[in-house]
Structures are given as structure tokens and as C-alpha cells.
């Protein structure tokens, strides 16, 4: 799962008299669960320790999130 696949962007309206420096692009996350109605059988798995660290057994459902990515 590529990190960039899970990010969506949009450009909010920028007014001529906005008080603060405008943020030109805003983003939000669309995690993999949004796209999978039912988990298919026999998916590949992370090794146990990596799965614990990531919080899921399944690479298909892994959603990385890093500080200041917005």
C-alpha cells in the first residue's frame, strides 16, 4: 500500500480578504477499509512482530500516518 494512494486533496476557496496566509491545498485520508466491502480469503500477512508493530496482520489494510503529513 503506497502512502500517497490514501491521501486525497482539495483546494478550498481563497478569499481576497482572508486574515491568515491561505492553505492552498487541504488533504484528508481515505484508509483502505473504505474500498473493501468484505475481506477476501487467503490474503498475505505481515510477519508476527511486524504485524504487532503495525497494528494489523494484513498489508492490504495497513494505513501509515505520519506527523505533519497534512
Amino acid at each position, binding site marked *: 500500500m503506497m502512502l500517497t494512494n490514501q491521501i486525497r486533496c482539495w483546494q478550498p476557496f481563497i478569499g481576497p480578504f482572508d486574515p491568515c496566509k491561505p492553505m492552498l491545498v487541504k488533504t484528508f*485520508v481515505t*484508509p*483502505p*477499509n473504505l474500498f*473493501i*466491502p*468484505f*475481506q477476501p480469503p487467503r490474503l498475505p500477512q505481515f510477519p508476527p512482530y511486524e504485524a*504487532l*508493530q*503495525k*497494528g*494489523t496482520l494484513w498489508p492490504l*489494510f*495497513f*494505513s*501509515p*500516518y*505520519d*506527523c*505533519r503529513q*497534512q
Partner: protein
Amino acid sequence: MWIYEKKLQYPVRVSKCDPRMAKFLIEQYGGSDGELAAALRYLNQRYTIPDKVIGLLTDIGTEEFAHLEMIATMVYKLTKDATVQQMEAAGLGAHFANHNRALFYENAAGVPWTAAYIAAKGDPIADLYEDIAAEEKARATYQWLIEMTDDVDLQDGLKFLRQREIIHAQRFKEAVEILKAEKDVKKVF
């Protein structure tokens, strides 16, 4: 009936002395989309949901208590050694006046937890959709919390919790699919 294992679901490490972060983390302790609300919501809905998904609500509701312990550990580590001055500087002066360093089920703004945060509509689809929404809201809260700290160890625990919200939302969606599929069940002889 529960069996208690005297360890956390995932190790919690906090590396930066930052009591300010405790005030924000408490949102996931006693806030509307926090772990307490989640655990009580699911464990209560179990009684009136179709049999096929009771086990799922039990499992996830139980795991939410494991998450509650992790958040409690984070908050405790961040506040247990804070001086009164540090508590006040972190915006926890009012908390200290009322609770000293004790944890309390309240949100980041100090509003006490209330049962009004959790719904039980008695309609399986309505209840499961509420659960999906709750998981997505908790996921978002973890994102904002990750952005509020530069402590990579604290972030690590928060990232784990965020990932679990995604898996829980997935399982609730699958529960809806199971209930939708009931009409197509054919008896095979």
C-alpha cells in the same frame, strides 16, 4: 466474564516530558469518540443485535478496554511526575484543583464523560453504522493527536491505535454485509 492479562495490548513508551500532551490525549480516554465510549457502546449493543454479530461486538468492545489502558498509561506517564506549576502551564490547573494527578473520564476540554455519547437504537443497521462512524471519528482523533506531538515513541503507540480503528471499522462493515446477505441464504441439502 473476562480474563485479565496483566500487560498492555501494545507497549506504551513516552520519551518526552510533555504534560500538555496529557490534556489532549484525555480526549481518547473520556471523550465522545474515546475508548471508554467505544467499549461501553459495543458491549451494550450486543444484547439486541442478531446472533451472528454478537461475538464481533464482544471482541471489539473488549479490545477497546485494552486501548483504554494504553491511553491511561500514556496520560499517567505524562502527569505522574509533573509539578503543580507544570500542570498549570499545561492547561491542567483546573484538573489539578479537582483531581490532583488522578485520571478522570473527561474530554480534552474537561467535560466529563456522559452516557449520552453512546447510542443504542435497537436497529442492527443503525447501530452498526453508528459503530462504523465512531471508529472513523476515533481514527481522525488519533491523526490529530499524532500531529500534536513530536515524541516518536508516543506517536508509535498512537499509530498502532489508529490502525486498530481502521480494522474495527472494516469488521463492522463486514457485519453489515453479513446481515444484508441473510436474505440470500439458501439451504443446501
